[in-house]
């Protein structure tokens, strides 16, 4: 009987060109993904204070126990390591992407892959079941270096002669053959040139954007990792797992043969969501899914294949400039840019952020040849057109002209121009935390902002954002009846956030966002997404599923589904609260790594605009804001209320941080975990290391 895990972990040292195998058994307690990745990083990275491009940095890729099994929507590959995007410190951070990589890795027999060192010349890693080869990627070898990310995959497929027919990868007729293409994660020029803004690209439309891990690949002279597996994954209880999948689909899922469910499907992102790709830009497209996913939210478009596979931010990065310049948004511009950006392997958020910032400075007369921002791009091209964006992407990937500066990321670029403080304060450069671009708004969606501030990146977990903000705001703006009223929502969510089970956790009132209930919410939220999603492998676009209007009690599958999946895959009886404990443990390990890198609570402050600029549109000036409506409990009753317009109160935030640190068992003076806390989670080894570094919480 299996437990969902592949038996081995692959460790490749590019400096010595050696391949080492670790036993997955030693790491299973961390779930997989960012949990296992953090533990591997802890064990393999000798000096955790090195820079992201140092050969000593260790990067890990892989999924969790759920990956490659019939658990619905469990195809993410998590990436961990020190990322160059963080500012001022290049923090240990995480990223992830969908597609086929984590499953294929497991079918090849590997749970995770860790890469350390630096190759002398460009290489790629070719994994064919248990056969692992470090191959020459240079011109004299397989000729991959210099190719864009799409072309790289085409060449590797050709090397594999992957043309959809049967191929053999071993002796066994039954287990050594496949028709599949290898799963390839690779970089384009932005990665090769070691920019701070480079992503990892996989297939079409999948990529790990945030973190800058493309640059880490480049720093290691690593062009790609390709894996083909012809094996399978054994689970503990296949009958229970299939039963759980069917139960989820029957009771909570979108029913393609019952279109009555279509127009009343409210919760688009959680489990019951429908394939969404068909609607982008009004162009027809065929739904396409990640491996084993029931949702198929990616799309293969019939608009000349533009933006194929893309469905998310990659096709939205340049919508507002195009709208401003031309009055419309087109697949021709957005799809082409998505393809170009993925080809270069550039983080989608960067073009958006840089475009907005330079646009603001341009209006102030600070951009032009010989000016503060020395560039001719606004003279030669019109902002908002495809040509401007394509040229900007090229300059950043090639580190040419203004692109050389912007390739360091917007925070470092602004710092070099002497504009960081002023532009973040004004909101012209909205970097919410750690130099990362503003994504969702911590002034209104408190748990999103706080979790981001206390980690090393935007939390990018839509668990509460989707149902509490997006669904509610949308229904408010369109005058539609809510799927559930605010009191029902609090009751339902309160029943699903074990062990706290406190409905007040989703109270987003001006006072409550600084309360203990918010500490509980942040704690639960961080633990949930660190374990079930980023470690075990569930997709953020399907979980958590709190509210489902199609069920009798309006409750979604979260709380019931996760333990069933764990039971079916691993055989473990693990109620949700135990899963949350595992998540908290992973969160503490991440926290310990930050601390070894130099983290202290005093550094955990937002970009200045968050304290000064209200999160509300005003004419002629607006800062990445929207009329967010969220549940609040005020004067003894629940309601939905527009909370936009507020700023973060710096003094209350500091008080809240102390409260939260106490809640987590960390030292409120520093934000460092205490020995008791760590030892209660069987992490004496972490406490010892922190103590050795003089950074154990008192």
């Amino acid at each position: 009987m299996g437990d969902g895990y592949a038996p081995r972990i692959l460790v490749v040292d590019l400096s010595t060109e050696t391949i080492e195998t670790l036993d997955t058994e030693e790491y299973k307690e961390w779930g997989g993904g960012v949990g296992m990745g953090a533990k591997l990083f802890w064990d393999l990275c000798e000096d955790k204070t090195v820079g992201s491009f140092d050969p000593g940095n260790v990067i890990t890729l892989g999924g969790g126990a759920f990956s490659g099994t019939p658990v619905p929507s469990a195809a993410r590959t998590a990436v961990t390591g020190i990322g160059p995007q963080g500012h001022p410190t290049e923090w240990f951070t995480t990223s992830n992407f969908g597609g086929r990589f984590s499953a294929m890795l497991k079918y090849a027999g590997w749970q995770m892959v860790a890469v350390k060192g630096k190759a002398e010349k460009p290489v790629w890693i070719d994994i064919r079941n248990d056969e692992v080869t470090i191959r020459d990627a240079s011109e004299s070898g397989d000729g991959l270096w210099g190719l864009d990310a799409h072309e790289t995959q085409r060449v590797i497929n050709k090397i594999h002669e992957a043309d959809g027919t049967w191929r053999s990868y071993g002796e066994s007729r039954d287990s050594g053959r496949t028709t599949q293409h290898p799963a390839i994660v690779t970089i384009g020029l932005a990665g090769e040139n070691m920019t701070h803004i480079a992503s990892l690209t996989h297939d079409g439309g999948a990529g790990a954007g945030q973190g800058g891990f493309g640059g880490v690949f480049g720093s290691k002279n690593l062009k790609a990792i390709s894996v083909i597996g012809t094996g399978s994954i054994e689970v503990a209880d296949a009958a229970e797992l299939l039963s759980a999948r069917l139960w989820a689909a029957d009771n909570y899922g979108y029913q393609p043969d019952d279109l009555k469910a279509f127009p009343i499907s409210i919760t688009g992102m959680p489990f019951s969501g429908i394939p969404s790709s068909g609607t982008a830009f009004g162009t027809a497209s065929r739904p396409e899914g990640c491996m084993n996913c029931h949702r198929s939210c990616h799309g293969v478009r019939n608009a000349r294949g533009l933006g194929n596979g893309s469905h998310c931010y990659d096709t939205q990065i340049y919508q507002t400039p195009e709208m401003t310049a031309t009055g419309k948004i087109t697949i021709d511009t957005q799809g082409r840019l998505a393809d170009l950006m993925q080809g270069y392997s550039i983080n989608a958020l960067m073009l958006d952020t840089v475009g907005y910032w330079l646009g603001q400075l341009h209006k102030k007369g600070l951009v032009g040849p010989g000016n503060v921002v020395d560039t001719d791009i606004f003279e030669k091209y019109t902002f908002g057109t495809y040509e401007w964006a394509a040229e900007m992407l090229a300059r950043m990937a090639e580190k040419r002209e203004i692109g050389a500066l912007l390739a360091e990321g917007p925070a470092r670029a602004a710092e070099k121009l002497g504009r960081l403080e002023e532009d973040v304060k004004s909101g012209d450069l909205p970097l919410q935390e750690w130099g990362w671009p503003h994504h969702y708004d911590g002034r209104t969606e408190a748990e999103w902002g706080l979790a981001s501030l206390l980690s090393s990146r935007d939390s990018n977990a839509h668990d509460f954002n989707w149902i509490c903000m997006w669904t509610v705001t949308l229904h408010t703006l369109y005058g539609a009846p809510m799927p559930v009223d605010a009191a029902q929502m609090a009751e339902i969510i309160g029943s699903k956030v074990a062990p706290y089970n406190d409905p007040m956790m989703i109270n987003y009132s001006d006072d409550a966002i600084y309360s203990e209930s918010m500490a509980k919410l942040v704690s639960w939220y961080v633990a949930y997404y660190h374990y079930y999603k980023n470690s075990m492998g569930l997709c953020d676009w399907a979980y958590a599923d709190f509210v489902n209007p199609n069920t009798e009690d309006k409750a979604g599958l979260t709380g019931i589904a996760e333990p069933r999946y764990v039971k079916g895959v691993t055989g473990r009886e693990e109620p949700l609260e135990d899963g949350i404990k595992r998540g908290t443990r992973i969160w503490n390990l991440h926290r310990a790594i930050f601390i070894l890198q130099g983290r202290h609570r005093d550094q955990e402050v937002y970009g200045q605009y968050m304290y000064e600029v209200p999160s509300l549109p005003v004419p002629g000036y607006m800062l990445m804001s929207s009329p967010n409506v969220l549940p609040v409990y005020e004067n003894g009753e629940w309601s939905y209320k527009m909370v936009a317009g507020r700023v973060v109160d710096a003094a209350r935030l500091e008080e809240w941080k102390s409260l939260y640190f106490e809640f987590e068992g960390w030292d409120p003076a520093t934000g460092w975990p205490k020995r008791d806390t760590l030892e209660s989670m069987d992490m004496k080894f972490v406490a010892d290391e922190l103590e050795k570094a003089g950074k154990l919480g008192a």
Partner: protein
Amino acid sequence: MMTTLTKPTEEEARRFTRAVDGGRAFVGTVMSPSAGSSAARLLSLGMVQQFLEDRTIEDFRAAGLRLNIHYADFGFLAQWFDEVIGDAELAGAISELHATGEAFGMLVPRVKELLQERIDQCEEVLEPVAEAATT
């Protein structure tokens, strides 16, 4: 469509339809379900009209709620038409709609209709002038 706005003079038509510079733009919000919100700088009457999307909650439900919302605060929009564009009558008409307190999405088609009416009026006034200039 019933005309509710006074037909502009040639001078007014030019003023109402001009594009202002970026510093005086009306800022709409593109709200994305995956990407957060971003600013859309709208420079003219025509751009505002195009920016606003006439969608219903059913459109969003059919897409699993995963469509962008092109949001504009109609109170601020009215102010912009008054103070920046100089079209007090259109501003007043939008203000009136805004004052009903109806939901944003319910007002969008009516605001769009008003904007389109003003665009049509301006084109009607300016077309003969443009024709005369070319002959």
